[in-house]
Structure formats: structure tokens, C-alpha cells
């Protein structure tokens, strides 16, 4: 194979503008046939935009694309599919009420206008057999877990005969086991001769499965690396443009008073199942208690119960000795409880509001933001400007609309609102989901700072690295119970992994 044809993708000088915003400023990307290529960079670096250009969803403003050495114009997904390019999107492109098989074949159903479900399902089953990817073809897509939905996305791409598979942050929503299974599939695909582009924020994943790395920063190329010859800190440096600080290394807290005491807590999930089945733990001031566990084992319900967003069916929740299990969120918050929710779009922010307005959510009815029921816009704006600067929101403009900020900056708005009034207890849930390493570092620093000031922190996260880096003690949740509480020192990844998977005996 000549050097020319071994280059499957050759993008040169790609530029893309959204109004005034320049998302890509002349980016090059070369991907060779048969490799797994990592595309990394901070939030907003332009990774998704570049891939959307390659997939024909966005039209570039300048630059050229060659596929197998031939210059091409990709005007839409149809063109990309015809060129053998498939994309597994960051937000799944599946139609929830359709069956797995219908989603796989959608847009390329073959065989007449009649919808022959039987034929479609058997075709999908054959495809599954060929690539060793198993999903029930006639299951309704919305009924299956995210890990399986992702397989449907992969099948969809393979069904169209794609030679190049683009994965945009495929692991962001997966449990550790699902990540392992995904990477097994990824390796099989490469062995089958497919080429893969993998976007991720997790350098450990980059090191584990990729061959080459392209780093983007601020819409420009910031490095081409060979995985085998590099290391995570070199990649991180290229992504961020500076050294990252090492976390950890801090004094263990003095035995302080108990801030939060949860006893025998029971609560139902939205579907009516018992999601919390007698949960006991406490959090002391100046301590971070990590709650580790595979998503869906009651963590969300636990956070909601503490905040008063979900009425417990049994047990008690005490803040400073007072039972708050029947309080509504307003009263709970008045006792000094702050909340960084797992889904900042759903629970954390009003996306259509300005930064300044989102900063005062929940405080809007009291001084200094309001007097006798009338908002004071001058104070709100001044407060917004101050917090935006203090929490490094970019752009530091209190009038900016929150929905237009990047994920990391949206999270800073949540933090600014929640942490700026010296909370006693902070409930944080998946605080760095979808954030890049610099924003992650920032969130972690802020949480440690609060701990230093004596706040008790309940940290719920499915990222083991995060739990282990921040927590003083780690409680593992499995099927609505705390199955073990470990000191951070004795909590190895293996032990946590086994406990999270429900193998308590093996972990002992």
C-alpha cells in the first residue's frame, strides 16, 4: 500500500465559523487505514465540530478533505455514508420508541416500501453475529440500557458498511464494565480492518486503546503524538497548554462533628421500585465522603432525598441533629445544604437565563437581590459580575446566556451559586461529567477548598478516579444499599470494582 492510500482521511486547513465564533481555525487531521486514532482537547476545542464536518453535518468555511487520497466534497451525511464514514454521536442518534432493528436500518431499509419487520430483524441478527455485538433486535430502544443503546449505534454504522467509525465521547455515559466491553468491541473492529477515531477526555482510555493522537486546542492543532511514545502528562500539557497540578496530598481532617447523618433511609424510584433500601452513613464537617457505584443503584434517589426533592418512605436524614427528611428543598437549603446536581441542564440551570440570573436562582426572594418582592437588577448584575470573575466563568460577562456557555463554564455557574454562601453540607453528583481535564481540575480544587473551610461533602460519582482522588472515605452503593465503607487508603480500584459489581465477599 502506498503512503497515499494508507492515508484514509486527510483533512487540511479546515475552518468553521458559527456567526462571530470561530470554532476551527485551520485544522489538519490525518488518519491512517486500520488505526485507532484519538482526537483529544478541552471542551470547546472543536473536536465535535471537526467530526461533524467530516460527517457532512457541518459545511466547512475553508479547507479540503481527501478520503483515500481523493479530494471529496461532503455535503451531507448521505455523502459521508457513501464514502464509508460512520459516526457514533455524543448524544445518541436513536429514535427511542422504535425497535433496535428499526433503528439500525432506518434510512437504508432495503427491499421495497413495505416494512418487513421479520426480514429486518434477521438481517440485524446476522450483522450482530458477524461482529459479535449482541442486542435483542426486537427490543424497544428506549427500554434498553445506555451501554446497549451504544451498541445499536455501532451496529447502525456497521450496517451501512462503514470503514471509518467516529466515536464522539463514547464512554461519557457508560459504567466501567460497559467501557471494558466497548473497548473489546473497538479492538475487534480494528482487527476486522476498520479504522476508528475516538474522541475522549479520559487519557487513560487514550493510552489503553489508541495508536496515534491528534490534540486540538482552541480550534487549532496542538500536537500529533504516537501513543506508544508518549504519556498522559505530555498529552495533558498539549491539551491545556500548561502543567497540571497534582491533587491529593492533604492533611486528614481532625475528628469533627457530624454534619449529615442518614439512618435507615428508604425511598422509591420514579418507577415505584424501592431504590433506597435502608441506607446508613454520616458525613463530618471537613470531610469528603465518596459514594461509588455503578449508575442506577440508588445514588440519584439518595441525593434527591437529602435535598427534599424526593419524599423518603422510611428512615431519617439529620443535619446538625435536626431531622430534615420531611422538609422541602427551600427549607433544606436554608439549613446550609448546597446541591450540585448530576444533570445541570435538567436540575442545575435555566439555560435561557443570563449568568447573573442563574447565580441567584433560589435566592431571588431575599435581600440583597430583592426588596419587598421586587428584584434589584443592579445588585443582581453586580453580584453576577463578581461571581463570574471569582469562579472564572468565561466569558466573564454576567449578561451572557447560560445556554451558550460550554459545559465547563456552565458547571462553574452552578458552583458559584452553590458554594458562595458557605454551605455546611454540599451534595455533589457527577460534578465533572462531560468536562475536560482543566475544568475537572478546577471543580476538584473548589471542592477541596470547601472541605478545607469545614464543609461536609457528599460526593456521588461513577468515576472511580475522581472518587479516589478526592474522598476521605468511600462508601460503595449497590442495589440501594451501602455495601461497604472504606478508608481512602485501603480502597484499591480492584476492591471498589468488585464491591460495585456486587461481589462483596470477594472484596473482603
Amino acid at each position, binding site marked *: 500500500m502506498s503512503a497515499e492510500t494508507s492515508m484514509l482521511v486527510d483533512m487540511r486547513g479546515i475552518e468553521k465559523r458559527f456567526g462571530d465564533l470561530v470554532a476551527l481555525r485551520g485544522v489538519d487531521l490525518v488518519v491512517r487505514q486500520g488505526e485507532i486514532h484519538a482526537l483529544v482537547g478541552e471542551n470547546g476545542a472543536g473536536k465535535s465540530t471537526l467530526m461533524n464536518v467530516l460527517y457532512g453535518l457541518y459545511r466547512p468555511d475553508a479547507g479540503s478533505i481527501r478520503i483515500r487520497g481523493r479530494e471529496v466534497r461532503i455535503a451531507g451525511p448521505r455523502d459521508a455514508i457513501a464514502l464509508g464514514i460512520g459516526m457514533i454521536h455524543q448524544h445518541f442518534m436513536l429514535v427511542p420508541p422504535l425497535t433496535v432493528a428499526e433503528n439500525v436500518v*432506518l434510512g437504508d431499509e432495503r427491499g421495497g416500501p413495505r416494512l418487513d419487520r421479520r426480514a429486518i430483524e434477521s438481517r440485524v441478527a446476522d450483522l450482530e453475529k458477524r461482529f459479535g455485538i449482541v442486542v435483542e433486535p426486537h427490543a424497544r430502544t428506549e427500554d434498553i440500557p445506555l451501554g446497549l443503546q451504544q451498541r445499536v449505534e455501532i451496529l447502525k454504522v456497521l450496517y451501512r458498511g462503514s470503514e471509518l467509525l467516529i466515536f464522539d465521547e463514547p464512554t461519557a455515559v457508560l459504567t466501567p464494565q460497559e467501557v471494558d466491553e466497548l473497548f473489546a468491541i473497538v479492538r475487534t473492529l480494528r482487527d476486522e480492518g476498520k479504522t476508528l477515531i475516538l474522541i475522549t477526555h479520559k487519557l487513560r482510555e487514550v493510552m489503553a486503546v489508541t495508536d496515534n493522537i491528534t490534540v486540538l486546542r482552541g480550534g487549532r492543532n496542538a500536537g500529533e503524538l504516537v501513543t506508544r511514545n508518549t504519556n498522559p502528562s505530555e498529552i495533558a500539557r498539549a491539551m491545556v497548554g500548561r502543567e497540571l497540578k497534582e491533587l491529593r496530598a492533604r492533611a486528614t481532617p481532625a475528628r469533627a462533628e457530624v454534619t449529615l447523618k442518614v439512618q435507615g433511609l428508604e425511598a422509591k424510584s420514579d418507577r415505584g421500585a424501592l431504590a433506597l433500601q435502608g441506607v446508613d452513613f454520616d458525613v463530618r464537617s471537613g470531610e469528603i465522603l465518596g459514594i461509588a457505584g455503578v449508575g442506577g443503584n440508588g445514588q440519584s434517589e439518595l441525593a434527591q432525598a437529602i435535598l427534599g426533592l424526593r419524599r423518603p418512605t422510611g428512615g431519617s436524614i439529620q443535619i446538625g441533629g435536626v431531622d430534615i427528611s420531611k422538609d422541602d428543598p427551600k427549607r433544606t437549603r436554608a439549613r446550609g445544604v448546597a446541591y450540585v446536581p448530576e444533570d445541570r441542564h435538567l436540575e442545575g440551570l435555566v439555560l435561557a437565563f443570563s449568568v447573573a440570573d442563574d447565580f441567584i436562582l433560589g435566592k431571588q426572594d431575599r435581600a440583597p437581590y430583592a426588596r419587598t418582592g421586587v428584584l434589584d437588577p443592579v445588585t443582581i448584575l453586580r453580584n453576577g459580575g463578581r461571581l463570574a470573575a471569582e469562579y472564572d466563568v468565561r466569558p466573564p460577562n454576567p449578561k451572557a446566556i447560560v445556554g451558550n456557555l460550554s459545559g465547563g463554564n456552565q458547571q462553574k455557574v452552578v458552583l458559584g451559586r452553590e458554594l458562595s454562601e458557605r454551605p455546611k453540607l454540599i451534595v455533589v453528583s457527577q460534578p465533572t461529567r462531560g468536562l475536560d481535564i482543566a475544568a475537572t481540575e478546577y471543580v476538584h480544587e473548589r471542592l477541596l477548598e470547601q472541605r478545607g473551610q469545614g464543609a461536609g461533602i457528599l460526593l456521588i460519582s461513577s468515576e472511580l478516579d475522581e472518587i479516589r482522588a478526592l474522598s476521605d472515605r468511600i462508601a460503595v452503593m449497590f442495589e440501594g444499599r451501602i455495601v461497604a465503607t472504606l478508608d481512602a487508603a485501603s480502597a484499591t480500584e480492584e476492591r471498589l470494582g468488585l464491591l460495585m459489581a456486587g461481589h462483596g465477599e470477594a472484596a473482603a
Partner: protein
Amino acid sequence: MTLDQVIGAGVLAATLRLATPILLAALGGVVSERSGVVNIALEGCMLVGAFFGVVAADRTHSVVLALAVAMGAGGILAAIHAVAAIHLRSDQIVSGMALNILALGLTSYLDYQFYGNTGTPADLAGVPDVSLGPIAAIPFVGDVIGNQNAIVWVALALVVVIQAFLFRTVPGLRLRAVGEHPRAADTVGIAVRPTRYWAVLASGLLAALGGAYLSLSVAHSFTDGMTGGRGFIGLAAMIFGRWTPAGALVASLLFGYGTALSFSLQGASIGSVQVPVQLLSTLPYVLTILAVAGFVGRSRPPAADGLPYETEGHA
């Protein structure tokens, strides 16, 4: 009050007659909303269908041409809504409401211009009833379905056709995908906007047929605002029927029955107590409110219903 007044052949035949325009509007609603466009202009589409059907019947003396013109008028109104909703991405409720007002004003203005105070001519070509011959002679059954209007049968056939189209054909699958998750449809190469245009256009044709039924099959004349909110009730029937043609049929029959009942129980009494017909005639509307408020079972609209599709927007 007699049993005959409640489930007699007369009441059931009236139920079918009264359900038909609601059903046609509901079918229009199903097709449009399944593709992701809310079309409350169906009321206006019905009204222009009713009016222009009469005008064409008067001028051409041909039922076929009258129906074609009626549906064309509904199609044009729906096309305006489609441009506003799909191309200009304007608020679909506002656009729909504006078109309803336009339709009301336009038809009453033209009605006055064309027919003045005398009203529409009495010798209009009407859509004929279909006599089922021997079936019409069967007692009861014959009394219910033996002599229904041709459009009643067309509407019933359309239930089957649209149900099969949506759930058993490839274009139907694509239309549903566009209404649930347009970006997903786009990424597999389905043309989102054209699909929606066709769906909205079809909804206008269906509603206009319902309007023409009112003026050319039932009333044999046009009067201002004669659709009387049936387009809206059709949308309620669509919700009641969970966005499926078969469900819309059941809901339309229920609404039709409510009205039929309020007619047949006129002056009836149970024992010495007068049946409160006025109250009874509100039944379809009460059912409508319950359906819209979600009390009658939970039904879920297509996920992208009413949302314009932005090609380069954030997901």
C-alpha cells in the same frame, strides 16, 4: 327515556355521521404531528374546504371538482403553515391560530361577496349517499350503515390506509422517526424538512375533506364559521387516540356518540326527571378537556412535536 334513544340504530347512524368530520381532522392531526409539526390550522383548513367546496359545486356542478377544489384550498392553507413552521421556524401555535382567523375572515367575507344575504344556492351538487342494497335491508345493521354518505366510507378507509402507512411501510417509519428525533433521521440521510412538508400538506387535505363533508354532504350549504371547532375537537380526538389513526377513530366515534345522544335525548326523561340535554351536549367538550389534560390514560406526543428543526444548531 327508551333504550332506542340511547343505542338505537338512529343514534348509531347519527354517531357515524357526526364522527366523520372530527375523524378526518384527527387523521390530519395524526399525520402532521407524527412528523413533528403541530397543525392547529386544521380548523381553518376545514373551513376553507367547506366554503370553496360549495363555491366550486355551485360553479361547476361537479362533485368531483368541488371536492378537488375544497382539498386544494385546505392544502394551500396548510402549505402556508408549513412554510411558517418548517422554513421560517415560527411558533406553530401562533401561525396556526393566525391562519384560523384568516380562514374565518376570508370565508365570511367571500361568502358575503358571492352570495350576499340570500345564502348559498339551494340546488348545490352534493356528495351522494351510498346505498348498500341488500345490506340496507337488514334490520338494525342496515339502518345504521345502509345509507351513509360516500365520505363516511372514505374516512373509514383512510383510517386503515393511514394506519398501515405509518406502521407498516418504510416511508411511514421515516415519518415517525422525523417526528421523534429529527437529528437522528437527518444523520441517516432522511430529508427532515421535505418529509414534514408532505405531512403538513396531507393534513390540510384531510381536514379540508372533513370541511367539504360538512358543507356538501350534510348541510348542502355554507354558513359562516360552520365548522364550529370540529378541527380542534379532531385534535383532541388525536390526543385521545394517542396519535394513532385507529385510536383517533375510537375517539371520534365517542365524541360523535356524545353529540348524537344529546340530540336523541332531547325532551326525554328518566321517571319524572328531565334528562338535562343542554348538559349532555357539553359531554364531547368535557371529554375533550379530560383528553387534553391527560386524564384519560397517558398518551405521549411524538418527542419532537412542535419543535422546528435547526440544521446547524446545538442538539
